């Protein structure tokens, strides 16, 4: 059969066939498309990790419940944690950073477009590889065997003695591969922010979103590198006869903990800084005021980044460090509360005296402020080492970090979705559905994570597949599970809203929020080249200057 006899079905220009579109997306190096792919990828894993969490919660509804076996439960909490950190939160924050940074600094793309695509595909491959373990880890002859070592995979459970088969290898390689992707994206963000700003945009005139993502990029390089090193050491232990973490041959389990948490704690800030970044754009626009104390906000961000590199061993207060070691990590941990507190106060002061519109993005940001305040205060309790000797590794910790990751990061990400959805799709989302999503998710979040603190105070450790009756944990766990269903419902409304609005929504126009940063000056969705003419700016709010020529910002900066 010759190709002449069967011509490729070419339709009229503009309406391309599905394989053509697919080919365009797969081979794209456009930061906007890569950003959207990161976001869609993160959303898919949000659903996957959410389903895993729901199964865990059903198992814990009642004491001595028998919904899943202990083996399956242990695999699911490992996969849930790994997925949510590395394949939900990281891709989502990278997605927004990728999409928005060039638009906000008036550039036409990231500094290294092909590195950008390469990094995305590494991350994508990592996630798929991790999930392939369900089929491949035990070989196709056995039952599926996903990793069951917990998301921080403490040695020596990961050694071949305690983890035969390949499940730990899938975990290690997935994180190694996606880690290289993260480092690539981080380098790209740093290079873009340093080199690609439009005329007039000095560092002190960058939108806060860009500043925070810039600091996040630096943190990624410093945090993910030791994690990658540790993964390589673990592989050497498992296959080349190394003894880094092999306690049976003189290795040290504690060294793994240091490696992991020297990554693990800055990682929290890698995720939360982009969340702060979104809040720092959304709160001013919906309060109709500029961000309060811009230079202090930048300084606080940099301070958080520096201090966050010196707090890791507060995850290790119970491993038997001496009192001097513990006291050092108490003081560094508590010190981080100061710049974080400054941020909360500055957001509050931004709202103060404004005219606040409570559209969906602002609803999520407002809830974020309350929740982050609470999460910060439980963090102080955990930072007080003796209190941590009681609270550490209990459900109190689980509640605390879900308060940070869901209550702060995911709430801000939802705010970012609703805020920038019109820009990315060109369509306005449905406001009523957005508010319904907020209400459901807000109720679910508080049912689940407020209540979850209490079993921790009553002595319930994390990572147990079942528990004894009569310890005062039963009713609390039931409420926690009910909350999970509300959250699931909220997510379904959210996904439906995105899809429905994308196909049937109303056109949003280029600037639906009457906002002030450069991405709102171009069309929605922006053309491939972003700006027909590279803009020049004179202040932090270039669009304010345009809209208010009688009272421009540059007079005051």
């Amino acid at each position, binding site marked *: 059969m010759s190709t002449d006899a069967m011509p490729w079905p070419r339709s009229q220009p503009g309406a391309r066939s599905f394989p053509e579109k697919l080919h365009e997306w797969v081979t794209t190096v456009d930061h906007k498309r890569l950003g959207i792919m990161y976001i869609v990828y993160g959303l898919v894993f949000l659903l996957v990790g959410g389903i895993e969490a729901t199964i865990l919660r059903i198992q814990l509804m009642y004491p001595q419940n028998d919904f899943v076996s*202990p*083996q399956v439960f*242990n695999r699911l909490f490992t996969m849930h944690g790994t997925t949510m950190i590395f394949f939900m939160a990281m891709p989502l924050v990278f997605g927004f950073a990728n999409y928005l940074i060039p638009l906000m600094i008036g550039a036409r793309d990231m500094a290294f477009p092909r590195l950008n695509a390469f990094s995305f595909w590494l991350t994508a491959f990592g996630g798929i590889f991790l999930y392939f373990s369900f089929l491949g880890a035990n070989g196709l002859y056995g039952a599926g065997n996903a990793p069951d070592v917990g998301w921080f995979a*403490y040695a*020596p*459970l990961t050694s071949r003695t*305690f983890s035969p088969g390949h499940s730990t290898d899938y975990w290690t390689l997935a994180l190694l591969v996606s880690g290289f992707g993260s480092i690539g994206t981080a380098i790209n963000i740093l290079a873009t922010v340093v080199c690609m700003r439009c005329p007039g945009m000095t560092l002190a005139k960058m939108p806060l979103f860009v500043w925070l993502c810039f600091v996040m990029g630096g943190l990624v390089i410093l945090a993910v590198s030791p994690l990658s090193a540790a993964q390589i050491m673990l592989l050497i232990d498992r296959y080349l006869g190394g003894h880094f973490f092999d*306690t049976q041959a003189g290795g040290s*389990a*504690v060294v793994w903990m240091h490696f992991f948490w020297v990554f693990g704690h800055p990682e929290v800030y890698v995720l939360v800084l982009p969340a702060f970044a979104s809040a720092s754009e959304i709160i001013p626009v919906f309060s*109709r*005021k*500029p961000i*309060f*104390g*811009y230079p*202090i906000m930048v300084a606080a961000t940099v301070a958080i980044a520096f201090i966050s590199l010196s707090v890791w061993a507060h995850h290790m207060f*119970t*491993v*038997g460090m001496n*009192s001097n070691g513990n*006291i050092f990590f*108490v003081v560094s941990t508590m010190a981080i509360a*100061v710049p974080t*507190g400054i941020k909360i*106060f500055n957001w509050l002061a931004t*709202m*103060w*005296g*404004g*005219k606040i*519109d409570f559209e969906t993005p602002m609803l999520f940001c*407002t809830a974020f*402020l*309350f929740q982050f*305040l609470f999460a910060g*205060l*439980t963090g*102080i*309790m955990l930072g*007080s080492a*003796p*209190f941590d*000797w*009681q609270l550490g*590794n209990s459900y109190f910790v689980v509640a605390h970090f879900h308060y940070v990751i869901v209550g702060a990061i995911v709430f801000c990400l939802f705010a970012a979705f609703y805020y920038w959805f019109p820009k990315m799709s060109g369509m306005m989302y449905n406001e009523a559905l957005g508010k319904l999503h907020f209400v459901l998710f807000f109720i679910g979040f508080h049912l689940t994570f407020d209540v979850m603190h209490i079993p921790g*105070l*009553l*002595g319930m*450790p*994390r*990572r*147990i597949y*079942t*528990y*004894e009756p*009569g310890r*005062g944990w039963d009713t609390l766990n039931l409420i926690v599970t009910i909350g999970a269903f509300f959250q699931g419902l909220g997510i379904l409304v959210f996904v439906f809203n995105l899809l429905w609005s994308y196909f049937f929504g109303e056109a949003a126009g280029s600037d639906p929020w009457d906002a002030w940063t450069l991405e709102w000056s171009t069309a929605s969705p922006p053309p491939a080249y972003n700006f027909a003419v590279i803009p020049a700016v004179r202040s932090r709010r270039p669009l304010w200057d345009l809209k208010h020529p009688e*009272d421009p910002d540059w007079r005051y*900066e």
Partner: protein
Amino acid sequence: MSPTNIFAPASTSAKWIFDLSLFVLSVTAVIFVVVFALLVYAVVKFRRRWGDDGREPPQVYGSNQVELAWTVIPVLIVVTLFLATARVVTAVQNAARPAGAIELIAIGHQYWWEYRFPGLNVVTANELHLPVSDPARPSPTFITLLSADTDHSFWVPRLAGKTDLIPNRVNKMWIDPTEPGLYLGQCAQYCGTQHAKMLLRVYVDSREAFDRWIKEQSQPARTGGNVSVGQKIFESTSCINCHTVQGTVANGRFGPDLTHLMSRETLAAGAAPNTPENLRLWIQNPDALKPGSRMPPMGLGDRELDAVTAYLLTLR
């Protein structure tokens, strides 16, 4: 009330931690109430009202005085909290060891606890007895924590904060119980499939009861009655590779010491009550009580099972 409530301390160090936690809780609660109130006020007061003229509010860019205030005040709070914390850290970790202290070695195994009193010639498993400490003449227990395999953590909330048991590492902790009673807890560091059923039971006895318990536990096995068939099966199968019965050929160390098995109220690290039926089921098929347990099913026939169970029931 929950038997594992961290706010019901029954020992000296747990009480210190409790007092510190009340202080930290009250400071954070005050911060929460103040900032919460400010946020609520801002949300309510500065929301856009009906019939707003649509004009932009005054554009305020910042204020150095205000920034200074909300930097300095948190710094002062942090310093206070830090000093209070450091005091308790030092007091607990650097506590002097009184003359009457009892020495104990606790070893974590995949899913059970081994206890050794080196000076008292006692080895036991899963159910720990300690003497109540008299404030006039304190007899705290100083524990050396070891692990035979993976990481574990010793956490009896009413008696002490948790400390990890890490292979190839020696950790220390101490307990100074002030009230007699049974204290529950469980392993608090994920250690494998049955992490959930690695439960802790600590009996704090009066001094006399504790001395009696030590005396009983230090005796070799006394077998009475007609159980030689069961003993013979036990000693001729692989049971003895893992279990010790003092005074017999059984001297394995991989599993719990069974010399005084029937002095314990539970089986399998607290997974089930120690009844004859449960004991038989446990020997027949450990996974029935604790799936993933390291003990293999022994593949014994019904009569052999009955005989071995009868033998073990005599180990008091």
